[in-house]
């Protein structure tokens, strides 16, 4: 009975090959990430041989394509932070309100109905958002704010904020629903209203999950390219003024990649320097959110 029959041998081979196939699929994602890091490092090292790290981090001008070259990342970084900040300033209050409404007020039926509609916001191609920001939102804002430039971080940030609402609302809602309902009952039992229960008990109890959702949304906004490339302009500028053109790290990478910069030149390598900055930025954000997530899972298990 213990001797393998042909049928069982065949099954064993299939089992074995499927296992290896699954392993290979998971390795692909690791190899890709590894490959990206290697390329970024090699090209980045080549870049930093010619430009000092201190100049890169402290120079307040970014003009690698001009004759008078400056390689300060700060203007691109400020453009990225400014647009992302505006985006999260829109997405956090709206997204959190939606999450609280869906988890604490609405019926299960309505919640099930609205969820796919909300997630559609994140599914709209970003080029449409960018176009929408440029030809609808900016002209509208220009009527309210005279002297606003046609390319600006305000309009790009606002539209990007709408795009990342589902990131905040969906994950925050999950965090709120993960809070034991015994806490909700305790609060109602004390005579608290729904609003008091939401604000004083549910949101604080879900805070780490909500923070994770916000960090992931920021991380998404930092990496977003199309909207800012179309609507925020392509002028690296160290400013916090949301009404003037700026350039984000991602928009710069697009600009140079599409241009006619010769392969292997210093100008070409700036893409990788900018890429490293972006990569490190989002890596830090993801690590913070990972740390929070672990902390928050421990709390309720």
């Amino acid at each position, binding site marked *: 009975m213990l001797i393998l029959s042909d049928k069982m041998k065949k099954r064993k081979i299939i089992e074995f090959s499927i296992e290896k196939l699954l392993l290979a699929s998971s390795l692909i994602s690791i190899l890709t990430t590894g490959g990206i890091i290697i390329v970024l490092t090699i090209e980045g090292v080549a870049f930093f041989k010619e430009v000092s790290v201190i100049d890169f981090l402290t120079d307040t001008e970014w003009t690698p394509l001009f004759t008078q070259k400056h390689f300060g990342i700060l203007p691109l970084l400020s453009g990225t932070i400014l647009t992302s900040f505006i985006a999260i300033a829109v997405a956090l209050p709206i997204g959190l309100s939606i999450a609280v409404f869906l988890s604490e007020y609405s019926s299960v039926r309505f919640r099930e109905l609205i969820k796919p509609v909300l997630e559609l916001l994140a599914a709209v191609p970003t080029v449409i958002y960018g176009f929408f920001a440029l030809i609808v939102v900016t002209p509208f804002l220009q009527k309210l704010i005279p002297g606003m430039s046609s390319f600006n971080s305000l309009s790009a940030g606002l539209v990007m904020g709408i795009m990342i609402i589902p990131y905040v609302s969906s994950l925050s809602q999950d965090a709120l629903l993960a809070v034991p309902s*015994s*806490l909700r*009952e*305790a609060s*109602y*039992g*004390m*005579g*608290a209203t729904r609003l008091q229960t939401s604000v004083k008990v549910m949101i604080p*109890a879900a805070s780490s999950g909500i923070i994770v959702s916000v960090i992931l949304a920021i991380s998404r906004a930092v990496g977003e390219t199309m909207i800012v490339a179309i609507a925020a302009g392509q002028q690296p500028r160290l400013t916090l003024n949301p009404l003037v053109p700026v350039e984000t790290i991602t928009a710069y990478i697009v600009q140079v990649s599409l241009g006619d910069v010769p392969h292997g030149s210093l100008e070409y390598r700036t893409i990788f320097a900018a890429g490293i900055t972006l990569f490190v930025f989002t890596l830090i954000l993801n690590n913070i959110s990972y740390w929070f997530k672990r902390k928050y899972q421990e709390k309720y298990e």
Partner: protein
Amino acid sequence: MISAEKEILPILNQQELYTVEPTHLHVASSDIVETIDVNVFYGDFHALKDVNLAIKKNSVTALIGPSGCGKTTFLRLLNRMNDYIPSHMVRGKVLINGVDIYRDKIEIEQLRKEVGMVFQKPNPFPKSIFENVAYGLRIQGIKDKHLIHERVINAIQQVGLWNEVKDNLRKNALALSGGQQQRVCIARTLAVEPDIILMDEPTSALDPISTSRIEELILQLKQKYTIIIVTHNMQQASRISDTTAFFYLGELIEVGKTTDIFTNPRNERTERYITGRFG
């Protein structure tokens, strides 16, 4: 503190809420809770059938009976905690201090300040011990720091937790033991000075020592509050309650003095249940 003036406030419409002083309803009898022909349905399920029960002030009433027989439903009927179940429906009268809490226009939040609740599993908020006990006062909009401080400390002393936690009132309540957490939850209820305290198997998740502390506490609290407790522990019911009500399949089978119920039950089903022959 219990006071005759502090009654549930019936409201005629929203505007009068802010202008009308609390109506002073004086109930002739000493029955603080009275249900008249109460029926409760969850969709098609008939959870309580024609329940008539009167509960005296400053007494401990134990609700006993097998699981799923309507004890908890009855308990939650009294502070309208079943309202959140969508298919839930109530027929009959539930009078608290003479006010029909399902028919008269009452403010549910106010009702729950008068009828506090302690749950089966300790459920302190993930906040400090102090903030847990102060919660009810804060949501009432009380800003007076001295008053809050006084009431919180008073409540913690009442539940006999003061010596254990006086040095770390800022500690997260979740770091306490199960028994201590449950006493924080009781203190949280006491701090808003309700008339009635509903307890849904408050010791079922606790060890014997914590259980006996809570039982002693219930006997003390009787001086000031009316307590209604669901329990599956027959010894507990006989130790702490004045009145025992036996529920079976949604009906109130028998109610009477605890000593009578346990020594001389009138109904055969009650006898079989308390002697452990079914349930």
